[in-house]
């Protein structure tokens, strides 16, 4: 019986062995293609001339950056059909760009350096983007969009991270980040603080220390040496017991404020306006009210970057020009609730006071906003002893415990 049918166990082992060989062969080929030496895109050449569109454009964006209102006219004008993938965090954008399936990304300053280092983005020839000329000059050639003197993107818009509070619960209206960082003040709202759940929030603590512990000598909240970093971490560990909820999705913070689970914390324009629309009793120290907390604030400045191996580079150049064209840039800024990057957009906004409310044309205001950057070992002053991004991520895990 056995002999006639062969030995099934032996057959199974043979099949398995064959498959392992196939698997190893596949793994070997795959291993070859994802090479680790891709870093540093500085040797790459930017495009020299924008040719005809390729008919397709694949983008990664923040929610609200690629909407029909200004994307449909773009498609009609250029014939580039836009397919957009929304990302929730900067980490996600960095990760998605590594897949090589996208032509461009609306990267915040805490993602740009990582993308350049990973070699997933290419320099941008700003001469091929006519509308770049009238972009606000304090957004050009910044450390988060220009590397070794080479431009890596087109500024899109900017905003500050806000302090928001429940008007019924938090009195008097706070004008300082004391309310979340000073243990004496913050303990009044124990269990009610709403704090951003990302390692970049360490910069908010560093910013607070800049004015409250000047002897630490912090100059840039994203460039922290061990001592400065430890001070910021200590502050955040002290804050932790008072935190009601760490949020990373906007929806989560909106429901927490609406449900009364938290009463004060850091937020974005998006949640603030959404809550106001719901009729929640919230106030914020937003750009639109003409002041930041007295220490200033962290914020973001976003940049459209082009993928190194973009399959549709011409369409991407068309897009980068389109999104900073006065009309489209005004539309996206008003839709999202941020200051436009394009000077001429201020004439195109539906709300004529929009640019003054968001301080779009007020460089003094933006000097107090520290845009997200990627923390690097390089301190920017010749020293190499700053804490890098992985240190920040690990410290953030230990703060939450």
């Amino acid at each position, binding site marked *: 019986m056995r002999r006639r049918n062969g030995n099934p166990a032996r057959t199974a082992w043979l099949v398995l062995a064959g498959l392992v060989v196939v698997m190893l062969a596949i793994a070997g080929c795959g291993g070859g293609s994802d090479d*680790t030496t891709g870093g540093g895109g500085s040797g790459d050449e930017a495009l020299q001339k924008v040719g005809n569109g390729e008919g397709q454009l694949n983008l990664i964006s923040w929610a609200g950056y690629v909407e029909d209102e200004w994307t449909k006219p773009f498609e009609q004008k250029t014939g580039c059909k836009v397919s957009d993938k929304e990302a929730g965090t900067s980490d996600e954008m960095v990760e998605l760009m590594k897949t090589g399936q996208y032509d461009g990304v609306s990267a915040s300053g805490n993602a740009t350096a990582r993308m350049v280092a990973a070699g997933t983005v290419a320099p941008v020839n700003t001469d091929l983007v006519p509308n770049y000329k009238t972009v606000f000059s304090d957004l050009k050639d910044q450390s988060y969009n220009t590397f070794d003197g080479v431009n890596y993107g087109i500024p899109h818009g900017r905003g500050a991270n806000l302090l928001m509070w429940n008007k019924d619960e938090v009195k008097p209206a706070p004008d300082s980040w004391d309310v979340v960082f000073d243990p004496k003040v913050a303990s009044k709202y124990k269990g009610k603080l709403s704090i951003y759940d990302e390692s970049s929030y360490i910069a908010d603590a560093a910013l607070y220390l800049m004015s409250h512990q000047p002897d630490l000598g912090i100059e840039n909240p994203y460039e922290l040496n061990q001592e400065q970093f430890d001070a910021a971490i200590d502050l955040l560990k002290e804050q932790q017991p008072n935190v009601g*909820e*760490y949020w990373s999705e906007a929806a989560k913070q909106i429901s927490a404020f609406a449900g009364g689970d938290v009463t004060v914390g850091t937020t974005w324009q998006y949640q603030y306006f959404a809550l106001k629309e719901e009729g929640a009793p919230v106030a914020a120290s937003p750009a639109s009210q003409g002041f930041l907390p007295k220490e200033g604030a962290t914020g973001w400045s976003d940049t459209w970057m082009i993928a190194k191996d973009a399959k549709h580079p011409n369409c991407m150049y068309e897009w980068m020009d389109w999104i900073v064209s006065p009309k489209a840039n005004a539309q996206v800024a008003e839709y999202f609730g941020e200051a436009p990057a394009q000077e001429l957009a201020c004439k195109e906004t539906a709300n004529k006071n929009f640019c003054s409310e968001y301080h779009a044309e007020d460089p003094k205001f933006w000097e107090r906003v520290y845009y997200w950057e990627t923390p690097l070992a390089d301190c920017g002053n010749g020293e190499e002893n700053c804490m890098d991004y992985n240190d920040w991520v690990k410290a953030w895990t230990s703060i939450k415990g």
Partner: protein
Amino acid sequence: MASEAVVQRRSVGHRLADLFHGRRRLQVGALLAGPIGWLVIGYLGSLALLLVAAFWSVDPLSGLTIKSFTLENFESLFNEPVYRDIVWRTVRTALLVTITDAVIAFPIAFYMAKLASRRGKALLVIGILLPLWSSYLVKVYAWRTLLSANGAINWALDPIGLSGPGYGTTAVWLVMSYLWLPYMILPIYAGLERIPNSLLSASEDLGASPFTTFRRVILPLSFPAVVAGSIFTFSLTLGDYITPRLVSNDQFIGNVIFSNIANNQPFAAALALVPIVVMIAYLLVARKLGAFEHV
């Protein structure tokens, strides 16, 4: 032309048939290549890659992996107390949820298997399966709303001077126990169903009290089913990271993996090995307890 193609096709079919004819080993091999291929390449292969990646490191700036052997991921995993706390919290919650679900599920399953009428049984099965028809995320968000400070739980408890647990560790335990309960009830129900009623009658006839019958007859016979159900509740809790994120500030192993996945995949891989090791230990214990016999 057409007839030639038919001849051609037929001869290919014939040749294939000839090839397989009488070659038992080849027949079995061709039959099994698909499923085993999936298992080995898709499943074990990715696990093997994970294992290997845990010994790599990462370029801090670009987040690209450096493929040379290092133990630094495991060093920081063992040396930094925060990771021990997180692992222990995750395992503890998984055990708590498992025990809670077992205690709640057993009476329900027993009622369904031994006491309920045909109709009642059908209704209960539907009732237990019904929550599984809606999305996991919807259920967690529903609990988030229920547990909120102005939510339904506080509203209901307020008149008697109590308040709900709010967000936190208790909330995680509560929500997870709710989410995974069906996965405990169904195996226990199936296990109890297989115990013949005549055994219970025999036990009674021989003078055993209901408690003795439960302890000496029902429990030993259904215990493997409980352990089988516990494998579901334990592993599902161990791997979850969305519930802790939505109803507490607690970090579970999954949350830390998630926050490292974008910029430090090797470390995330090292972390991912922790639940695998815990699960293997759990399965070995389960096997000792006889969960895989009589299956």
